[in-house]
Each structure stands twice: as C-alpha cells, then as structure tokens.
C-alpha cells in the first residue's frame, strides 16, 4: 500500500489523463490512510464556465507539496447565486480559499466577437457597471466568509475587428478590459483578504494563442485549454502555501558554478566567471536577483566546500560581485559534508529545515541533501547556467500574505546577527558583550502602523513568551483604544543594526494593581536584558499612576522555557500555582534597577 507522497513522487504526471489517473490513486489513498499530519486546505472554485479537470489537477499539485486539499466546485456558471445566497453550498463548505474565475468571454457574451455593436460611450458605462458588479460580488463573499479570495482579472482579448486601429479608439474594446482590470486592482490594493490574480498576465505567459481548444469550447464550453490547468494550479499554490505557513525563509547557496562560473580554489580571483562577459553576466544577474530577494526579506546563507579565505576573497575583493559578506546570515565554507553544514545553518538561524531552499549546481550534493534532509526544498538547477536566473525567479515559495517592515528587512537583520555573534566571540564575558553592543531600546505605545506587527509577534513568538496568548489585529486595536489597557512595543537597535519591533507587553491597568497580560520577545533579542528595560519602564509608569503592585502570569508551554525564570529573577514573588499557570506579584514599594547599558527612549 503506497502513501500519497510515494504516489506523487513516482507518478510525475505530464499529460492531462495522467493527472486524472494520479488523482484517482491519491483519492483512494486519502480515504484509507491517516493523513492527519499533513496540512489540509479547503478550496472553493467559482467560475463562469466548465471547470472539469481543475479538481483532479489541483489535488495532484497540492499533494506534491505535502498539502491535502478539499475542493468545492460551484455548479456550472452559478457563481452569482452561490455568492449571493447565504445558504449556498459555498458558505456551508466553509472554505479557507475562494477562487473567483470569471472570464472575459463570459461577461461579454457575443460582444466578445462583435464589440463595436455599442459605441464608446456605452462601453464606458458598461465597463463601470461591470467593475461595480464584480467588486460587489467579492464584497459579498467578504461579508459571509473570512476565506482568502483569489480574484482573477480579465484576459485582454487577442483580436479586434478594428485591427491596427484598435488603439486609436476613444475607449475601445481592449481598453475597456484594461480599464476594468485597473479598477479591480485598485479596489483591492489595501485589502488583506482579497488577492487579485493577474490572469491576463498568466494567459500572455503561456500563450493567448492556444488559450482555447475550440473543439472543447464548442462541445463543452471549456474556456481554458486543459493543458493550461497544471500551470494555473501552480499559480494557486503560490497563495495556498503561505495560507498554510509553508513559506520558505532562507536560501542556502553553493558558491563555485552557482554564484560564479568556475572554481575559485583553482581558477583564482581573476579566473572565475563573474562580470561583464556573456557568461559572467548570467552570474551577475543571478546574484542581482538574489540580492532583490534579500531586500524583500529572504535570508541568504552559504554552504560550500572551499577554503574559507579563497571564497571570502570573492565577496571582499572581486570587482563585479553583487553579493557581499554582509548579505549572508550564516556562512559555512569548509570541507565538512554539506548535510551537517545544513543542519548547523538551520540551528544557527533558528529556522526549520522546511524553511530552507538549497541551490547547488552539483547533482550529487543535491541528491545527498534530498535523501538526508527531505524537508529542505532542493531546486533542480539546470545544466545550462544561463537559466539560473529564470529558475530562481519562477520559485513561488517565498510568498507571504502580508508584508510588514520587519519582514522586508529580515535578510538584513539575520546577517547583522551573524556580525553580532562574531563580536560576542571577541569579548570576555556576557556583560562586556552587552555593554559593547551599545543598545538603544525604544518603547512605544501601539499605533495603527505597529498594530499588524504586534499581532504578528503574539501569533509567532513561542520561546520568550510568558503567556503565549495569540491576538488578532482587531484584538490589539481594541486593547490599545481601551484606557484600562496598555499595549507597548519595543524596537531594539545596536551598533550592528536595527532589529525592528521585537518585543511586546500588554498590561491591564487597575487603579491598585497592574496586571501583565502578555510579555514576549522575538528570539533574536533574547538574552540581551531587553525585558528588564521594559519592566523598569512599566514599574515606573505603574508607580506614577499610584498602583501598589504589579501581577503577572507565567503559563508554561512546551516551548517557553526561556521565559520561565523571568519573574523570579526580577523581584517578583510567587503567589499561587495551578497546573501550568503561576501567578507572580511585584510590590511597587521596592526599587527596581534598570540595566545601565541600555539606553531607553520612550514615545
């Protein structure tokens, strides 16, 4: 009896019938085996035409990524009714993701062939109404479901009866579709629930020429060639992966013949291929794209068999290297095996192996990592190095649904952390290290700008977290607007860089007693006494308000041992203990000594 993973690994379907065959096998396996450990996702598809095949292909594509999908396909061309009727199958299904796929032919009907039966003025009225209707449909879904919504824009047609004069029309046929797409895009730019999928770009990419198989279109109203469905499923997966938190965070890179052509240890600094030659340019542009990913928050690391000094010389002295030492958060350049280097890198960065993408030109290295560390995504690098850039750019594994400023600079922060760790190795003890860091902690009340990040921290922080209470943005907003509550966030800077907002405290303020509801620090600033600076601040505030004591809870979890002794080490006394919950209390008549090596700024 095969499990699903084996089925998809062996099947590797290419033709549409092979996808169907593979999905039948998967369905049998889902029914009989325990797939509880795999993440499940419920996807509803609403479309304006026959979507036969989508279920089978999406099932295979999801299982290839270790995801079990459950699908709901709305009845043929019933998207309006499904959306508008609160009792419809769509809402009963309780989807995590809704795909709305309405195509240009469907909304234009015979006007797709004969667009100029109406004049330009009427076309403008039509376009405005169509935009309103489409947007209204999406708004309706939002009122009844919290599912993420993928909303297809419309494909701009290939032909116009006006021929070369099409673009001379005042609000012509093509322009009307482009106008609709613009309206839709603008409407949902700031909407965190709705994602406009650029279906027009998708069609261009794979060819509008063959978008329709006319026989299937006339026989069965299929408005998308079945051959395109696997590609479309890949596009949906770019959204599904982050919904299930299957986002890759880090790219681990080989060096020789990956970041440059040739072997640095043999060819030397002048001999490697990197720079304004045809081959050298392919590596420069590849590095450029890696830098672009770094700048949007992807962590970079090196895992290479080389002499450290030879390899570092490229980043330090090569005139055409785009990537520099400062871009890498972990560097393993040695003669150890790549598997243990990889494990080391994950440990050093405190990320899971399943958050890592590995790029290496060497087939053996790739196979070794694949065999030993199956959680790592090992990219099949092409033999043709000019295709490196394309291979990298086509990965859809780095997507996140919402980006905060901290996310954008994550690559930089991890790289700064490496410099910090190196500095720590040069000092005598911890207190020299803390003093030498030259830290500035900014304590600030929650604002509309910081609320998303504060919520994200309560959702993600496991280690230094006293109570592990998870809050949505709405919760944080409510606390921050309530005079009886105080929501603080902490930004930590030092001489190596800015860690951004990495700490949160939420407290309830009763006249006599303040209660710490939540106190957490992101793992990258644990062990730097930031919590003491924060506590000193809140003790000062509580005293000013006339309160007599501060209480706090410690709720023990599997992961929050780093926060276990916080109260004990900071002058609190234990009042009670029940199950996993301890209640501690601080008497405000005692003085608290804030760490003098942290500069505190309050706003």
């Amino acid at each position, binding site marked *: 009896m095969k499990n699903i993973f084996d089925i998809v690994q062996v099947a590797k379907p290419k033709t*549409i019938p092979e996808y*169907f*065959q593979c999905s039948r096998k998967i369905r049998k396996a889902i029914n009989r085996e325990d797939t509880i450990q795999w993440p499940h996702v419920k996807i509803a598809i609403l479309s304006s035409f026959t979507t036969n*095949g989508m279920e089978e292909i999406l099932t295979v594509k999801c299982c290839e990524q270790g995801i079990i999908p459950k699908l709901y396909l709305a009845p043929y061309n019933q998207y309006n009714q499904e959306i508008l009727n609160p009792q419809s199958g769509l809402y009963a299904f309780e989807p995590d993701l809704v795909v709305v796929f309405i195509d240009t032919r469907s909304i234009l009907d015979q006007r797709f062939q004969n667009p100029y039966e109406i004049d330009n003025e009427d076309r403008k009225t039509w376009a405005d109404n169509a935009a309103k209707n489409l947007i209204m449909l999406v708004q309706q879904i939002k009122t009844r479901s919290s599912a993420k919504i993928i909303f297809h824009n419309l494909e701009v047609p290939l032909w116009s009866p006006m021929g070369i004069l099409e673009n001379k029309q005042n609000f012509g046929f093509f322009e009307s579709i482009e106008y609709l797409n613009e309206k839709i895009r603008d409407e949902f730019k700031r909407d965190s629930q709705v994602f406009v999928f650029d279906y027009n770009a998708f069609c261009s990419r794979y060819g509008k020429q063959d978008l329709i198989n006319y*026989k*299937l279109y006339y*026989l069965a109203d299929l408005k998308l060639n079945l051959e395109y469905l696997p590609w479309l499923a890949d596009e949906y997966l770019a959204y599904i992966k982050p919904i299930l938190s299957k986002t890759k965070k880090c790219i681990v890179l080989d060096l020789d013949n990956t970041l440059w052509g040739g072997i640095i240890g043999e060819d030397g600094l002048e001999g490697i291929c990197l720079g304004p030659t045809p081959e050298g340019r392919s590596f420069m542009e590849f590095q450029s794209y890696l830098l672009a990913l770094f700048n949007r928050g992807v962590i970079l690391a090196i895992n290479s068999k080389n002499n450290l000094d030879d390899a570092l010389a490229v980043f330090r002295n090569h005139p055409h290297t785009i990537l520099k030492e400062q871009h890498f958060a972990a560097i393993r350049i040695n003669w150890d095996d790549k598997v243990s280097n990889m494990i080391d890198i994950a440990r050093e960065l405190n990320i899971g192996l399943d958050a890592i993408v590995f790029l290496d030109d060497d087939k053996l290295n790739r196979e070794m990592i694949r065999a030993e560390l199956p959680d790592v995504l090992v990219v099949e690098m092409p033999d043709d190095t000019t295709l490196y850039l394309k291979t990298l750019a086509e990965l859809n594994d780095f997507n996140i649904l919402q980006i905060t400023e901290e996310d954008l600079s994550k690559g930089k922060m991890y790289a700064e952390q490496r410099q910090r760790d190196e500095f720590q190795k040069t000092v005598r003890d911890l207190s020299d290290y803390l003093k030498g860091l030259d830290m500035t902690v900014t304590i600030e009340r929650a604002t509309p700008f910081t609320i998303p990040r504060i919520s994200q921290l309560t959702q993600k922080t496991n280690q230094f977290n006293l109570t592990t209470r998870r809050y949505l943005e709405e919760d944080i907003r409510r606390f921050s607007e309530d005079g009886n509550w105080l929501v603080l966030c902490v930004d930590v800077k030092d001489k190596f860089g800015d860690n951004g907002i990495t700490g949160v405290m939420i407290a309830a303020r009763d006249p006599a007693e303040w209660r710490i509801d939540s106190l957490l620090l992101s793992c990258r600033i644990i062990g730097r006494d930031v919590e003491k600076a924060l506590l000193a601040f809140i003790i000062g505030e509580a005293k000013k308000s006339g309160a007599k004591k501060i209480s706090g809870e410690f709720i023990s979890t599997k992961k929050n041992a780093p926060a276990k002794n916080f109260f004990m080490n900071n002058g609190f006394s234990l009042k009670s203990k029940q199950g996993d919950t301890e209640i501690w209390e601080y008497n405000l008549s005692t003085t608290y000594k804030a760490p003098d090596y942290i500069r505190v700024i309050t706003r």
Partner: protein
Amino acid sequence: MDELKKLLATVLNIDYEKVDDSLSRETTEEWDSFNHLMLMSEIEKEFQISFSLQEIEEARSYSDIRTLILDKKQ
C-alpha cells in the same frame, strides 16, 4: 494501435488488456462525456490528426476510433 490502447486504459481507468472491440461508451461507465472529450483531444495530439466535431460526437467505441485514426493516417 498500442498507443491508442494505452490512452484508453489511462483515461478510462481500466486495464490495458481489457481494451478490445467490445469496449464502447455504452459498456463502460467511466467513458462519460468529459472523458470522451479528453480522450479525443489526446488522440489528436498523439497521432497528430484532427477530428471534426461530428466525428468526435459520433465515435462511440474503441473500434470506431481505431477506424477513424486509420482512415486519417492513410
């Protein structure tokens, strides 16, 4: 006609050996209208031929399809 047999077996989810002259849309539950369309368009690709809409609609069995292909390939 091995390729045709293979295609039929894959699309209709039956054993390769079971593809014989008795196989038709009437005798095979899996041979529904969508599978039929998928089958015919795969055959067009595989054998590099083109069917008319009428031919697609009228083909009802393995032997119908085989005859069609042989005609077109001549």
